[in-house]
């Protein structure tokens, strides 16, 4: 036996099992990209693929990279994707009908060609026997990687730092929208309301708009709230219902309510 073979890497059965379980799952998850119509499903499945890859990394004696993969890709990148999906319309499920003539066939051809070429090359290549990372990882994997990053690659590392900051700033600028008018905050709103009140507006303007439904009696959204004097507050019913004309009229109220309103009316007359 030559010395290289002695140090050669023998993969354990456990790793084999892991691979044959996860690899098909990863491929299926990736295929979701091609066939699913809902973007959120795709994002979730790709997040799954990322986790599978993280597990592969760990199996490949790169635990640091595996965890970093989870933190970076699953925790940040895919989460960013989900955010953007929710920003640009979550419900848009996409039609899978191809609009460009011949595009699909070219894509399939190219894809098959790629697979055949890459797999053919990998299988056909004379690759050395695996060496394994036992020696390189002697001081644990993070330390080994850190030595390289802060040693040999320190300049590239600094550059990627600069790149990240540039990208963050770039994203800020790209998505920045110039505010055309001054922002109206809570305080401004309150001041405006009070000013309106001071100039003879109704007391409703300074308080929070009441929710629909009668306090402690009735909580359906289509019946207006009553103010402190028992008057119905029309603005408490959601705008949508009002536009649709689904507001509850007096005839739809229960007898109890009608009686209450009647009593209130009487009281008002007495007061008056």
């Amino acid at each position, binding site marked *: 036996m030559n010395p290289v073979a002695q140090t050669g890497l023998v993969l354990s059965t456990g790793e084999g099992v892991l691979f044959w379980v996860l690899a098909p799952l990863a491929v299926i998850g990736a295929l979701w990209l091609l066939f699913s119509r*809902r973007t*959120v*499903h795709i994002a*979730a499945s790709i*997040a799954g693929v990322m*986790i599978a890859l*993280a597990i592969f990394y760990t199996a490949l004696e790169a*635990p*640091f990279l*595996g*965890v*970093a993969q*989870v*933190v970076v890709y*699953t*925790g*940040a990148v895919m*989460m960013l994707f*989900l*955010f953007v999906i*929710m920003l640009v319309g*979550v419900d848009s499920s996409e039609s899978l009908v191809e609009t460009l003539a011949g595009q699909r066939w070219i894509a399939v051809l190219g894809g098959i060609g790629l697979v055949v070429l890459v797999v053919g090359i990998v299988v056909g290549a004379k690759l050395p026997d695996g060496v394994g990372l036992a020696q390189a990882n002697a*001081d*644990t*994997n*993070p*330390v080994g990687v850190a030595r390289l990053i802060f040693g040999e690659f320190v300049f590239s590392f600094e550059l990627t730092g600069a790149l990240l900051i540039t990208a963050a700033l770039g994203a800020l600028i790209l998505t920045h929208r110039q505010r055309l008018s001054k922002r109206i905050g809570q*305080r401004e709103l*309150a*001041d405006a309301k*009070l*000013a309106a*009140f*001071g100039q003879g507006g109704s007391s409703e303007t300074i308080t929070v708009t009441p929710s629909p439904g*009668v*306090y*402690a*009696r009735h909580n359906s959204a289509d019946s207006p709230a*009553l103010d*402190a004097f*028992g008057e119905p507050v029309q603005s408490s019913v959601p705008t949508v219902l009002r536009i649709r004309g689904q507001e509850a009229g007096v005839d739809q109220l229960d007898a109890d309510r009608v009686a*209450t309103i009647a*009593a*209130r009316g009487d*009281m008002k007359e007495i007061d008056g």
Partner: protein
Amino acid sequence: MNRIAPMLAPAGPAVDFSQDTIWISVIKAVAIMVFLLISVLFALWFERRLIGRFQQRLGPNVRGPFGLVQSIPDALKLVLKEDITVKGADKLIYIMAPVISVFCAFMVFAVIPFGPEVRIPFTDLVTPLQLTDLPVAVLYILGITGLGVYGIVLGGWSSGSTYPLLGSVRSTAQVISYELGMGLALVSVFIVSGSMSTSQIVSSQQQLWWSIALLPAFVVYILSMLGETNRLPFDLPEAEGELVGGFQTEYSSMKFAWFYLAEYINMLNVSAIATTVFMGGWRAPWPLSAINDGMFNEGWWPLLWFLIKLWGFMFFFVWVRATLLRFRYDQFMHFGWKVLIPVALAWVVAVAVVQGVRQFSGIDLQTILFVLAGLLVLLALVMFFIPEKGAKDKAGGAGSRALTGAGTPTIEPKKDEYFDAFAGGFPVPPLPGQQLPPSKRRARVTTPAAPETDEENSDG
């Protein structure tokens, strides 16, 4: 002797798992599961009892001694309720979301050390009180918490309803933001411990707990821990006044129970991490550790210290919940991004510089380290009190308010005269200055009549 851990400590785990067979691992895993489930049940009771005390009432006290088993019927009730699947929901993800949450919550305890190596009773096997450890264990925890967010996002989205979606977006933003602060707080621990492995971090705190040496990082961690678990004062994703129930609005019964479970396990998780990383893990507190040549740091004793510290943090959670009010969302984000993260960053840089100087020049900088820590705490406090923007605006606003507020009617309080809420035919709340008559229910709390079930649904 320098009390900071030596720089050249091995970066890998400090304990030996080589004797663990697959069966021992399985037993440990099952033990952790059981521990977590029981802890959650206990935590429910613990929280309600404590809140009761804080609010000058009794809390559950009927079922079992001190009402201890109250949580079991409550949990059963929750599970047996009708399981509604919303019509507009995306079924697969709707079901998957709580599963993801719970799954990720359970994963964290795998790397938490409960104690040192012990001999399993009735055998010769020696094994650490810890399921497993990695060179990157704490990073793994961060990754898992990152995954846990998916449960919230996907749950909110898949409900197909507006409030849950808003709640989930808020929650995601919140968790991601505070995860940054948390990660940065942990980085300074990595730097001084020279390792990311939990057992190694515990063993590096032999001399001094990091909560003392790295006080600013500890404070940052405690704050981001509250944000990370969506607990008061940072429970914005489920702010009832604004978002109904947040991302879990459309969940009910078993699926809701899973979210609920995940939330409490997450509390336990962050408490356990805080214990491990900052409070010396299973190590006995100082006067005890000195007794009899460290007797209390060996055998099964450490399990006790660990649990005491863990529940100390749980107590802190409840205390905060009972004491503080909810933040407004912009204040919360402002606090996270403009106070916590800068402070944490500055602290990391300071620690790195100190550590670098220590390693490359051999100067003992212990005193300087303390001075730095004090300065940073001061800075964090100062930043908290700096008004958000131009005090001038505020003064102007106050002036205009005084102008318009001149006409506000003041109501003279009438002594010995109670307000009749039902005077107008329907109940209205009292105006300022009016007094309600003493509640008739006041007497009921001492009589063991009806079980208190009116509260737990709003607890979530």
